């Protein structure tokens, strides 16, 4: 009898001391909320303390056989899900279980088992400022809630104020997201290599090829038609691969794509110095457009979580790209056309193409062979002063024009022949 009593005392002591080592009478439920463009992920970590385990197990192990069967795991995840609410801009979203892991029952009995549940919800398309609300009311009588927003991986998402109820069962997060159109515009404005390719390809567009040399001005109408054809072909090319890659039909290794883009600049720069593919510029623009489209796609991969989102995303992003492209053409092409009529265009064109070649070579060395790129910083610095470059181009064009006008005006007074 005495021995039994002693054993019981030891058992009881063991039980209490072991219980004293960690969270006792609380069911810690930590939610981390990751906001993406059209998806919200809720990572839930549930740790029942030993003293509340019977209560929690009563909900999980419904047939009371001491085993948490897979069906019971799924049923419990469903129960938890029904105790959660997630909404964006007041619209309730459907949470979908994407990951589920249960610890061993033995670990849970020691009070350290962590149940992991990850949920995802599709966020309807929207724009600008958004408000997310998340509530967790699972086993509120024993729960200790934690709710936090994770710093978004997508730089187009900006988190604002967070508000919570005292016990953190209710969580409100304000955030804003940059529109796809704006992202597309930014991508071109900051994508020096895309810009450079397009501009260099346009350099010889107003000229007539005479054998292996560029000859004189092709005329305003012909030049404009050609420019439009080249730009449209480039647009068709990159739109095709952008859509294909975003839809998941094409996957190009980004390393190869980056090298090909640098090569595309080199090819069009050589062509601007000496005609390599006269008359087939549009075809080449379309071909290299396919390559550039693959690079555009890397920005938006993972955005489209269903066909509808993908279409909206690609459309918005592409509209942004085209808008920026058109804006850049509008501010540069008139000056190019104006200069192309004058003899000074030849040295300007060659100098521009040579500079682009050097930049392209730097990128090729860097991207294909991992070499240090000494011209990279120079190119980036120049690109960051875009408006200044356009202003310089405009001043040169105006200067040349006024000089020509001046010379033609004084021509009658100058007798020299």
């Amino acid at each position, binding site marked *: 009898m005495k021995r039994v009593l002693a054993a019981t005392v030891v058992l009881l002591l063991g039980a209490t001391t072991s219980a*004293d080592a960690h*969270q*006792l009478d609380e069911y810690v439920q930590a939610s981390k909320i990751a906001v993406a463009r059209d998806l919200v992920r809720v990572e839930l970590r549930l740790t029942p303390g030993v003293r509340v385990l019977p209560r929690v197990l009563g909900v999980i192990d419904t047939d009371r056989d001491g085993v948490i069967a897979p069906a019971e795991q799924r049923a419990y995840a469903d129960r938890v899900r029904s105790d959660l609410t997630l909404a964006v801009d007041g619209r309730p979203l459907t949470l979908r279980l994407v990951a589920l892991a249960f610890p061993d029952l033995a670990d849970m009995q020691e009070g350290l088992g962590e149940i992991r549940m990850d949920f995802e919800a599709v966020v309807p398309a929207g724009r600008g400022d958004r408000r997310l609300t998340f509530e967790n009311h699972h086993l509120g009588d024993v729960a200790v809630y934690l709710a*936090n927003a994770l710093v978004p991986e997508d730089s187009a998402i900006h988190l604002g104020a967070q508000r919570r109820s*005292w016990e953190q069962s209710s969580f409100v997060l304000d955030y804003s997201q940059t529109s796809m159109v704006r992202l597309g515009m930014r991508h071109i404005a900051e994508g020096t290599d895309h810009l450079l390719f397009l501009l260099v390809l346009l350099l010889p567009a107003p000229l007539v090829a005479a054998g292996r040399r560029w000859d004189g001005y092709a005329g305003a109408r012909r030049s404009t038609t050609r420019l439009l054809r080249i730009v449209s072909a480039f647009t068709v090319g990159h739109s095709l691969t952008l859509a294909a890659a975003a839809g998941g039909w094409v996957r190009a290794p980004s390393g190869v794509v980056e090298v090909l883009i640098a090569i595309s600049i080199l090819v069009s720069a050589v062509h601007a110095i000496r005609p390599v593919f006269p008359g087939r510029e549009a075809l080449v623009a379309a071909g290299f457009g396919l390559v550039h489209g693959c690079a555009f796609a890397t920005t938006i991969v993972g955005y489209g979580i269903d066909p509808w989102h993908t279409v909206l995303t690609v459309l918005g992003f592409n509209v942004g790209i085209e808008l920026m492209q058109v804006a850049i053409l509008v501010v540069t092409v008139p000056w190019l056309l104006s200069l192309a009529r004058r003899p000074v265009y030849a040295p300007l064109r060659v100098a521009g193409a040579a500079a682009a070649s050097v930049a392209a070579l730097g990128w090729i060395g860097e991207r294909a062979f991992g070499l240090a790129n000494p011209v990279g910083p120079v190119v980036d610095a120049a690109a960051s002063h875009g408006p200044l470059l356009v202003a310089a181009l405009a001043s040169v064009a105006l200067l040349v024009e006024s000089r020509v006008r001046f010379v033609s005006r004084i021509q009658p007074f100058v007798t020299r022949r």
Partner: protein
Amino acid sequence: MMRQAMRGLLLASLAMLCAPRAAVQAQSPTARIVRDANAFLATLQPAQKQRVLFAFDDDKQRARWSNLPTRFVARAGLSMGELTPAQRTAVMTMLASALSPRGFEKVQQIVEGDEVLKKQEHDNPMFGKDLFYVSILGAPSETAPWMLQFGGHHLALNITIVGAHGVLTPSLTAAQPARYEENGKIVRPLGAESDKAFALLNSLDSAQRAQAILNYRVADLVLGPGQDGKTIQPEGLKATAMNAKQRAMLLDLIAEWSGIVHESAAAARMAELRAGLDDTWFAWSGSTTHAEGRSGTAYYRIQGPALVIEYAPQPLGGDPTNHIHTIYRDPTNDYGRKLTSK
């Protein structure tokens, strides 16, 4: 002959005077840690050595740490309890080399605290200083990256050494009891972490406090063990809204964690934290008062571009002032990733 002997003697004594001093001066902190790590490894039997060494890129071993007792989260490596006194001394010498004097003292006080807990709990075999584990990932080197781990219940030190760099993140310091008596003296392993935080809180004006104090309860560490690689949105009072004195107090509070590692690594880390100070946030949740000589019951968090510190008192044992968990992270450089990737 005589003159030659005299000259020899003179040279020899000069050499004896200079040599040790030169050797001490030439020894970089990393060289010192490598020397002491190799000295520890030399004391081990082949079978022990096999258990203490892991590959540097062993991600599982890297993340095998916790605030929980070793019975619940099994640690790998060698436990202090299975080492000879000489081997234990070698471990402590190695730790003392890798840490600052105060950092080493803090670690010893946490370990001693677990021994006190063991005694308070009637010799509970779950606790005690024998249950702290040491492990080495990679080979001790002055150039190639390697890692030294030491921890158990309420302690996890992950020290990544890459050349002259010494990275302490992620590390966990905790204490229960948070206040105990040893040789007639009161020991509070994490006392300064509470006292300095209250000093900073009390220096804030009402507008600053309104921002710093969160209007919700935080019951536990948010980025504790198992949460590697997560970065939460910061909250609270930004250091740009603090005056120079408060900013200095904040840095001084941070130093309770960043200063655990040896001085030159701690100085480099402090320079980095100072550079990111403008984007560093201080958030508080819970009671704003504490009993004299005792730690508080409030949770607080310090978060910057390269920093997460959380201080979370635990209700366990009935007295949150006596049971504290803290975590120290660098989301950009946990386990020295910034230095070793590429």
